[in-house]
């Protein structure tokens, strides 16, 4: 393995001078730095200095350690399976009305979330996350900048978002959540009065639907007091690539795999923003009777 890496490195060094060698022509795609279809680089992206395969670490010891961690995870999963559905006893499945999904008490909890902003498309917004005072909440803050990047094709800009990392089981397999006992999302937040969008991504079976997102709005008050916002799942509407779809359907949460929850701010107003999140949980709101908020009538009635 190390020999192959050295060979490739040597070949890439010689690639600049000796182009007529047969070995080089065979290793052509590996040595060139261009992507397969186009070498256009978006304004916000860094130029790639390392070839993609050079990022892989081929050390044997690291592989064994990785295998050990994955086997430990597998053992834990087997033990959880013995306890009951979702790792909890069945009685909990019957009786639970609330469940805390994410809470922010340490740096580890912050690492479960990924930040992104319009820097990816060449914009100028900034977003940061840190633990709040006394490690009791997460503070998502930054500046929104709606200046459109001048690349000739982008029309709008100015968004920042925070998405959770999807849960993976052993050997990077998808973990399935069963949220069917609950009907609302419960958020304890303290905002600054700006409206946010809450997005749920359920990894769909078909690749055509990989841009499907279920969204709803979260209006924050901005006061010094904490808010407890309940968003029922029946209110989430379906959008794909940012466009709200005509055929709406409720989000099914009985087998949501690779689920990510995200908060996005994109209210077209330049300026700083702040959001403190204490915890994110699920609630079974017994008073909520709505199945789905959009178009509940039958569309294909017989004539």
């Amino acid at each position, binding site marked *: 393995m190390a020999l192959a890496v050295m060979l490739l490195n040597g070949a890439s060094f010689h690639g600049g001078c000796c182009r007529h060698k047969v070995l080089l022509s065979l290793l052509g795609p590996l040595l060139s730095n261009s992507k397969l279809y186009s070498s256009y680089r978006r304004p916000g992206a860094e130029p790639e200095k390392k070839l993609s395969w050079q990022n892989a670490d081929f050390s044997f010891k690291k592989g064994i350690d990785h295998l050990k961690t994955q086997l430990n995870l597998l053992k834990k999963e087997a033990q959880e399976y013995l306890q009951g559905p979702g790792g909890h006893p069945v009685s909990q499945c*019957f009786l639970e009305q609330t469940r805390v999904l994410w809470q922010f008490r340490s740096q580890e909890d912050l690492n479960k979330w990924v930040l992104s902003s319009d820097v990816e498309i060449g914009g100028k917004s900034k977003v940061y996350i840190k633990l709040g005072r006394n490690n009791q909440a997460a503070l998502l803050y930054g500046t929104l900048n709606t200046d459109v990047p001048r690349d000739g094709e982008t029309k709008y800009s100015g968004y920042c978002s925070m998405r959770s990392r999807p849960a993976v089981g052993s050997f990077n397999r998808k973990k399935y959540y069963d949220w069917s006992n609950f009907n609302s999302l419960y958020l304890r937040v303290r905002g600054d009065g700006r409206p946010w969008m809450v997005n749920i991504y359920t990894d769909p*079976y078909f690749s055509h639907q990989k841009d499907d997102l279920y969204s709803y709005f979260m209006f924050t008050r901005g006061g010094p007091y904490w808010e407890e916002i309940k968003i029922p799942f029946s209110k989430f509407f379906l959008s794909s690539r940012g466009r709200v779809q005509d055929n709406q359907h409720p989000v099914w949460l009985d087998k949501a795999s690779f689920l990510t929850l995200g908060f996005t701010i994109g209210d077209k107003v330049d300026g700083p923003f702040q959001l403190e999140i204490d915890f994110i949980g699920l609630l079974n709101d*017994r008073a909520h009777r709505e199945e789905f908020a959009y178009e509940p009538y039958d569309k294909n009635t017989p004539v």
Partner: protein
Amino acid sequence: TISSNHWILAWAGLEINTLAVLPLISKSHHPRAVEAATKYFLVQAAASALLLFSSMTNAWHTGQWDITQLTNSTSSLILTSAIAMKLGLAPFHFWFPEVLQGSPLITGLLLSTAMKFPPITLLYMTSSSLNPTLLTIMAILSTALGGWMGLNQTQIRKTLAFSSISHLGWMAIIITYYPKLALLNFYLYTLITTAVFLTLNTTKVLKLSTLMTAWTKTPALTAILMMTLLSLAGLPPLTGFLPKWLIIQELTKQEMAPAATIISLFSLLSLFFYLRLAYCSTITLPPHTTNHMKLWHTN
């Protein structure tokens, strides 16, 4: 398929069955329902192709297309795997819970009962030329997997899918020795499962937590649901015990007592989740709560 004597007609019947049920599965156009319909189509189409292949191999070797004259051993092996895919016998059972979960309750009933009838008829007609060892292994695997995988389910449709897989194991183990018993098992299973599905459809129950509050709407129906579920589990003196008893008796007569013991022991696993369903519906009384608007009815 049931009334045909020629393999091509049987295959055509199976294909028509598959295509006819696909719109029923994806009726609500929810992505999950469409996913279930796609999975169903792919599995059934592959199984039909294997079935056609087995009948063609048999016709090549023996020169005739009669269903009851499947004498070539390779053909019967391929046919067994094709029918196992159609029915959802382990190890070809992976599609069944997902498809049932994505389809509405009545379509789930159809998939568990009516759609299993043609493949079982084909097995019945070719039972004399099937490989008993392969079927026994598949049957024991089905009962085991149906029992184990059904244990941690909170969605009732998936639980019923695993119960179906488990029962198919019982049918498959006896089909070569006493085919009429397998048919009897199938008829009784169909009857009891129909009762369960229709009860669940009346009370609009899809998951265990909703099942717990179904007694407030129809107390008598949930009490009978308990009896029906225990009958599915095979507890004497209920009807569901009869096929199990006769199958064990027949297996013992055929010098297959260890197989009979193993399959009975694996049925204990499925008894656990039947008991859990019965416990949720009737034996415990959670406080009065209503979760869904559609569950109220005033008759």
